[in-house]
């Protein structure tokens, strides 16, 4: 019998068995980065993202008794995070802070963090420009489209997982994703 190869989980797709919810420190260790990243990409505010991640894990900790394993731990946490991001976006005070940018970080910096490092400086500059273009168009998307877009292309979640995390139907997720992609593609076409 041949041994079955299990794929090594990436940072974005790492998964904990449902029973592992009891070891909450392990849950925090595994998923903190993911929740923080989604919050940061959505809110563009480092302090707000950290606060949101703390709130997300605190809510999860308080509600862990009600977790029945109908979805994965990651999807369950992302659902809490999605709701918190939505509430935060609605919060006028947070909007004010975002405008004040006292602690904000420029997501444009993300363009400098390219995984493809074995490229020429010219090609790298072009790729950075491309990443910036995608980021700019993602920032301008309506809230739901942006959430779906980030969950799909940053968190690498499937349509099914996004539907579970956002509480939308799969068809609705696809529609939002389609519209987001059309906007991003249009911007990419302009920048190309």
């Amino acid at each position: 019998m041949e041994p079955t190869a299990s794929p090594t989980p990436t940072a974005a797709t790492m998964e904990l068995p449902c029973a592992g919810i009891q070891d909450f420190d392990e849950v925090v260790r595994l998923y903190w980065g993911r929740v923080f990243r989604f919050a940061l990409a959505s809110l563009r505010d480092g302090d707000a993202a950290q606060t949101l991640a703390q709130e997300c894990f605190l809510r999860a900790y308080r509600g862990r008794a009600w977790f029945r394993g109908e979805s994965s731990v990651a999807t369950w946490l992302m659902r809490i995070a999605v709701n918190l991001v939505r509430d935060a976006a609605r919060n006028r005070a947070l909007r004010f802070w975002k405008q004040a940018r006292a602690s904000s970080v420029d997501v444009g910096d993300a363009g400098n963090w390219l995984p493809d490092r074995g490229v020429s400086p010219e090609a790298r500059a072009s790729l950075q420009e491309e990443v910036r273009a995608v980021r700019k168009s993602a920032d301008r998307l309506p809230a739901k489209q942006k959430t779906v877009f980030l969950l799909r292309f940053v968190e690498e979640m499937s349509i099914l997982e996004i539907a579970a995390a956002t509480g939308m139907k799969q068809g609705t997720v696809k529609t939002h994703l389609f519209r987001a992609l059309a906007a991003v593609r249009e911007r990419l076409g302009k920048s190309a």
Partner: protein
Amino acid sequence: MTGGHLNSEDICRWMAGERAAGEEAHVRECSLCGAEVARLEGALKRFGGAVREWSAAQPGAQAPEAWRADRSARQWRVRPLRWGLAAAALVVLAVIPTWKSARDRRMAEEADRADAILMEEVDAQVSRTVPVTLEPLVNPVEWKAEAGRELPGKEKGEER
């Protein structure tokens, strides 16, 4: 599809996960459509990778070491409120019997006073020598006084 190639809408639908069998075959065979899909897929992959790497380098990206301590600290923040509510409940419980006994005492005093007034009225009724309706007849002074009140009017009439 327009002119045998995937149009903009088809490509976005493709990227959103809506892939028809015919389209998959076309993207495999058509270098133009294949290149466009690969270009968009590559851009989105690079965007995702860049955001992940950039986010990991931000302060706050690492799980806090003191999560347990932070959790208990948060619980402590909630505890003063709980203690306050418990203290308030105790005060209410302690005050209720005192308030109740004071109210009972006040009601007893009022009842005593009412009884005393009633007894006085009863005494007054019992000590009457004639019925109430006959009292004016046995008290001519009062009758005179009432008649006297009408005299000035009469006097005025006589003067005219």
